[in-house]
C-alpha cells in the first residue's frame, strides 16, 4: 500500500503523477531543484522538498539526495517519471536498501534493459527478431561487423538512450571518424564509451508497444507510431500505428508480450521496434522500463490511466485487466510543444512564458506545467507541454489536430508549434504511415 508517494521528477510528468496519485488518495511529496521551487508541480504537490540547486547532477540525478529526501519525508515509494533516474538500477537498489518502494520494474530488469546489448540478447532468447549487428568491443571488431552487415549502418551506445551516442555511417571510409564521435558522445552522456553496430533500415518506422505486467502475467495496450523524430528524438506520436495491416500490428504486439512474459516484467514498459515501411517486417530495438512521454495517446484510445496502473502494480496488486478487457477506441495523436527554435536547428530556448493559450475542448487533452509567467529553466529538457487529440478515426484526429494547433499561442520563447502546423497540413502525414525520413524531407 502506498500512502505517501515521493515524486523524483519535474515538469509536466511530475504534475501528471501528482494528479493521479491525489485522485487515488495518496499524499504526494515532490522533490524539486531550487530552479523549480515555484513551478506548477511544486504548487500542486501536497508537500515539497528542495533537494538541491538547478543543475540536475546536484538535484534530480543525485541518488543520495533523492533517497535521503524520500526517507526523511517518510514516503513509502518513489515515482521516478521518465528520464533522470527512472531507469537507474543503482537508484532502485539504494531505495530498496532504504526500505522504500520503486514505481518501476525489478532491479534485474533495469540492469538487463539498461545495457542495450544485454536487452538484444534477452529479446533473441524470447524469440524476437533483431537487426543484423551486435557487439563490437574493439575498433577491429567494429570494422569486422561493419563488413558483415554493410552500409549504411548505425553505431549505438551500449548504455544509450535519447539518441545520444547514436550515429549513422554511410561509407566505410567514414567509419573511424564517426566511431570516435559516437564513443565520445556515449562517454559524455552515459560515462560508458562502448558502442555496438546495427544495420540501418532506409525506410524505417518507429513503432512501439505499451506493456503492462505484474511479474506473473503481462498484457499489451496496443501500438504507438513515433516515426516523426529529429535527432532521434520524438516529436509526434500516435496510437494505434496507422497505415499498417492488422496482422502486422498484431504480430508486433504478440512479440512484445512474449518479451514481457520472458523477463517477468513488472509495471508499465514499452517495447520499441523498427518496422520496415515497405514490407512491415519488424525488429526489436529496446525496452523502456518506465512511463513514456507519449503514454497519453494510449490512455486516450484505451480509457486507462497508466500512472494508476503503475501505482497499483507497485503496491503489490496483481493486474486486474486482461487482454480481452482492453478495447482500443478511435485514434489519438500527440505533438510535443518544445521551447526550441526549429528554424535554428532546434536550438533550445529557455526563458519566460509571457502568454500560454492552450487549445481546449472535447477530445483535447493538454499535459503541461507551463502557464503565463512560467519559467523554462536552462537546466532541463525543452518540453513545454503535450497536445493530445482523440477522434473517432485518424482522419478526424488529424482535423482536430489542425484546428487545435491553429488556436495554440505561446509567447515569450520560440516553440515547435509552427513546425507541427506544417506537419499536420502535410498530405503525406494526412495519409499516415510516414517513415523516419519524413521530417528532414518536410518542405519549409
Amino acid at each position, binding site marked *: 500500500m502506498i500512502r505517501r508517494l515521493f515524486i523524483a521528477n519535474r515538469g509536466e510528468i511530475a504534475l501528471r503523477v501528482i494528479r493521479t496519485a491525489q485522485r487515488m488518495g495518496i499524499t504526494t511529496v515532490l522533490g524539486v531543484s531550487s530552479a523549480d521551487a*515555484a513551478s506548477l508541480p511544486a504548487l500542486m504537490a501536497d508537500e515539497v522538498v528542495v533537494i538541491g540547486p538547478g*543543475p540536475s547532477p546536484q538535484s534530480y540525478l543525485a541518488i543520495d539526495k533523492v533517497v535521503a529526501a524520500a526517507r526523511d519525508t517518510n514516503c513509502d515509494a518513489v515515482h521516478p517519471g521518465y528520464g533522470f533516474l527512472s531507469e537507474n538500477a543503482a537508484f532502485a537498489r539504494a531505495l530498496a536498501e532504504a526500505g522504500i518502494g520503486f514505481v518501476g520494474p525489478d532491479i534485474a530488469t533495469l540492469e538487463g534493459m539498461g545495457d542495450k546489448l544485454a536487452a538484444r540478447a534477452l529479446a533473441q532468447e524470447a524469440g524476437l527478431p533483431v537487426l543484423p549487428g551486435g557487439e563490437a568491443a574493439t575498433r577491429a571488431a567494429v570494422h569486422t561487423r561493419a563488413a558483415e552487415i554493410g552500409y549504411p549502418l548505425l553505431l549505438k551506445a551500449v548504455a544509450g538512450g535519447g539518441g545520444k551516442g547514436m550515429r549513422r555511417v554511410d561509407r566505410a571510409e567514414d567509419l573511424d571518424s564517426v566511431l570516435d564521435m559516437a564513443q565520445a558522445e556515449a562517454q559524455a552522456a552515459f560515462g560508458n564509451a562502448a558502442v555496438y553496430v546495427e544495420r540501418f533500415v532506409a525506410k524505417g518506422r518507429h513503432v512501439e508497444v505499451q506493456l503492462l505486467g505484474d511479474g506473473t502475467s503481462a498484457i499489451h495496450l496496443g501500438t504507438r507510431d513515433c516515426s516523426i523524430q529529429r535527432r532521434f528524438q520524438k516529436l509526434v506520436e500516435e496510437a494505434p500505428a496507422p497505415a499498417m495491416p492488422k496482422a502486422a500490428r498484431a504480430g508486433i504486439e504478440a512479440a512484445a508480450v512474449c518479451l514481457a512474459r520472458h523477463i517477468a516484467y513488472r509495471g508499465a514498459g514499452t517495447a520499441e521496434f523498427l518496422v520496415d515501411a515497405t514490407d512491415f517486417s519488424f525488429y526489436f530495438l529496446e525496452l523502456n522500463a518506465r512511463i513514456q512521454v507519449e503514454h497519453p495517446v494510449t490512455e486516450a484510445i484505451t480509457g486507462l490511466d497508466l500512472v494508476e496502473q503503475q501505482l497499483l502494480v507497485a503496491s503489490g496488486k496483481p493486474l486486474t485487466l486482461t487482454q480481452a478487457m482492453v478495447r482500443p477506441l478511435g485514434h489519438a495523436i500527440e505533438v510535443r510543444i518544445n521551447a526550441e527554435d526549429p528554424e535554428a536547428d532546434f*536550438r*533550445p530556448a529557455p526563458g519566460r512564458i509571457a502568454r500560454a*493559450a*492552450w487549445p481546449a*475542448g*472535447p477530445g483535447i487533452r493538454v499535459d503541461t506545467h507551463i502557464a503565463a509567467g512560467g519559467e523554462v529553466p*536552462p537546466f*532541463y529538457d525543452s518540453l513545454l507541454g503535450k497536445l493530445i487529440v482523440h477522434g473517432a478515426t485518424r482522419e478526424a484526429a488529424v482535423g482536430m489536430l489542425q484546428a487545435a494547433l491553429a488556436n495554440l499561442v505561446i509567447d515569450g520563447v520560440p516553440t515547435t508549434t509552427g513546425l507541427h502546423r506544417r506537419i499536420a497540413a502535410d498530405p503525406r502525414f494526412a495519409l499516415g504511415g510516414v517513415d523516419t525520413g519524413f521530417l528532414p524531407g518536410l518542405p519549409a
Partner: protein
Amino acid sequence: MSEDLPLTAEDIAEIVSIIEASPYRELDLATRRFRLRLARGDGAEAGFTQEWQWAGSAPEAAAAAAMHAADPDAVAAPLPGTFYHAPQPGAPAFVTVGDVVGPETVVGIVETMKLMNPVHAGRAGTIADMIVPNATMVAKGQPLIRLA
C-alpha cells in the same frame, strides 16, 4: 492542498461544451489559487483556448537577469545556461588570457537543456579577461570574456 483543484482535461472539455451551447464566448474564472480563461477564438470555425495563471508561480528574479548593458568588447552568452571554459572536465581551456582569436574561434561552451552550444569570439582580438569563472550559470547576453 488538493481541494481547490485543478480541473482535469475532461472537466475542461465539458465546460467548453457548455459554453459552446450557450450564447457566451468566454468564461473567466478566478479563485485564490488560479485564474482560468476559456475563450473562443475569432472566426466561425475557431476552437477554444485555455489560459491559466497561478498564484505564487513565476519567480520575479529570473526575468530581471535578462538585462545586461551592451559591452562592445565582451563576448556575450548566446543563450542562458552553464558556461564552461573547457570541452570537458580536466581538459585544457579553449582559450586563456593573451590568446589571439579570430571571429570563428570557439572560446567556450554554454550548456543549455543538455545540449552543448559553442561560443564564438565574434570578432578578431586578444583575450583580455575571463570575466566569468568556469562552470557558472549565465544569463543570455551576459558578458563572458573581454577582448582587447
